[in-house]
């Protein structure tokens, strides 16, 4: 039977900053072993790929540093794997609560949706949709509150990036250039 982790101890497990990176030094968290296996396999794959760059041709070859770093990755990943495998499991955590809580899954789905819709729909409608659903889901506040916050945020971000920094976000279905031109004409007195 799993026990709901205490929120304070859970926070410490995630680390308060990079100086205290989280994790539990003496215990194995859910999914930690699988992550360690993944890192070891990925490091081995990268070492293989680094060897393909120039083999052992010369110490100054373009593959020398990549081989040295991926070898260091593989060695440390294997040692971490060995250490992790020997550690006892934490008794108070489950994969669903400690690693994949519903809010994280929901955000991941929203992000995938955002990435897929950004080009065809454009920045403004996709961002508005993303913010609206995310804020509504996470806060549970009224549609009016969510709508106002969404609108103000999207307009603010768009003004900073599009107008001040002239970053061209995908326009999609919104005729951005035409809208900006209308405002320009308005301020130039239609000239």
């Amino acid at each position, binding site marked *: 039977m799993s026990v709901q982790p205490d929120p304070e101890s859970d926070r410490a497990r995630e680390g308060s*900053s990079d100086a205290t990176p989280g*994790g539990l030094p003496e215990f194995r968290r859910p999914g930690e072993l699988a992550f360690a296996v993944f890192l070891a396999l990925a490091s081995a794959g990268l070492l293989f790929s680094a060897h393909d760059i120039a083999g052992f041709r010369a110490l100054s070859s373009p593959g020398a540093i990549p081989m040295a770093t991926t070898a260091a990755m593989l060695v440390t990943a294997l040692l971490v794997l060995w250490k992790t495998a020997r550690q006892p499991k934490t008794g108070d955590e489950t994969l669903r609560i400690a690693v994949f809580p519903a809010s994280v899954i929901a955000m991941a789905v929203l992000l995938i949706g955002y990435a897929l819709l950004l*080009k065809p729909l454009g920045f403004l409608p996709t961002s508005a949709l993303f913010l609206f659903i995310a804020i509504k889901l996470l806060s549970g506040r009224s549609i009016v509150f969510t709508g106002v916050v969404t609108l103000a945020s999207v307009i603010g971000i768009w003004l900073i990036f599009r107008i001040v920094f002239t970053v061209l976000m995908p326009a999609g279905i919104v005729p951005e250039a035409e809208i900006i031109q209308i405002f320009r004409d308005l301020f130039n007195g239609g000239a």
Partner: protein
Amino acid sequence: MSALMDFLTVFTQPQLLLLVGLGTFAGVYVGAIPGLSVTMAVSILISFTFAWDVYPAISLMIGIYMGGVYGGSRTAILLNIPGAPSAIATALDGYPMAQKGEAGTAIGVTTVMSFFGGFIGILVLAAAAPAVSGFALRFQPRDYMLLAVLGILLVGSLSSGSLLKGIFAGAFGIAIGSVGMDPLTFTPRFTFDQPMLRGGINFIAVMIGMFGVSEVLLQLHHVNTPAVRQKISRIVPSFGTIKRYLPLSLQTSFIGVIIGALPGTGGDIAALMSYDHAKRITKNPETPFGEGAMEGLVAPESANNAAVGGAFIPMMTLGIPGDAVTAIMIGALFIHGLNPGPMLMIDHPDMFWFIVGALVTANFFMLIFGLTGIRLFVKIVEIPRAVLIPLIMLLSIVGAYAVNNSITDVYWMLGFGVFGYFMRLYGYPLGPVILGVILSRLLDDNWRRAIISEREDLGRFFSGIFHSPLSTVLLLAVVLIFVSQTPLWRLIRRRKA
């Protein structure tokens, strides 16, 4: 006399004064907003200031640079997202302070110490530019390589977690930095025949993902926890506080200016080395390092702003950029028909003294803007997480996209964000990954130069190190930092105690 007049140019021309002020104000917020980098802002500025006269263009860029280096600390303290790599060390103690509701104190101390650091950096730039650049000229490629290794090991040693995980993270960062076409031989590295990998992986996308997205995903665990109310009753630190930390600020400012003067190493390494220095010399901190130690804020913030002055030394005297922003500034000077390097000091001494004057002005503006408007700024952390989290996520996406107007960078950012999330859950530090990515090129290029100059002979390479006092000191530092993190060392120390 002429030098003094050139130095005072900014102060005597209201338009230039206004541009430095505007630049600094914008820089503070550019540095603070996740996803907006000073490098990006300065590079975009070039595109619409190249038609301007050189003085106004440089005034605006210097303002943004000085303000941005400082501004990076704001989000490091409030959100644990360093606005710039130079603020990575600031997050180590700044964020724990904000979590305790002491964001106002943290920002106040950070601002004053950044001002001191910035001032020391400018003073050294003005007084000792030729001497320091002469010292940097003596650096051999192997010294740069050792310096890069030292930087990555240092950031690994800052972590209280596992040494193995720290080394893995640093090596992983270097591997990411190697992706793409090798600039010397044009050989593909880790491209897997994918055209999108040929140009490499943008480090800003990696940084936003690792620090921004991973933090957002972790914050989702506590989405219903009410935000910590920040105590902002006192922002300007007391004279006693300043007096107490001034010696540390001075020491770390000098570390910052020297590191900043070394080409390729900027405020990021300066801040990390200074943090490490503070950690070693502070025997009994009031609050332990990593949990909100004031020394952990004073050291990196003095150093990274001191590094700004330092970064201009090789740029102005050798034509070698001290960091990414000064690299862009070299481009700006070229556009305006100036040729940074030894001849610039002879042909256009006015430009040197003008830049020194603009830096001093920007430093004063930074102090003013840093100590005002904080109340409004800290309100950000009091916004409910349910609203803040999606907003930060959106800013991160836009920021990653803005670097190259590329959707691929957004995918990279999201990918590294998810990876960073797992790394944090399982105790892998993220700082070494970022530093590895940034220093990868420096390490690779200089290793290859060094080993070619020793005719591919490892024996000659090591004997070369021991024949140079500078290389020997750097190697000893690398070995010491490594050994001091091993369990064997801890055992010896425990037995001694």
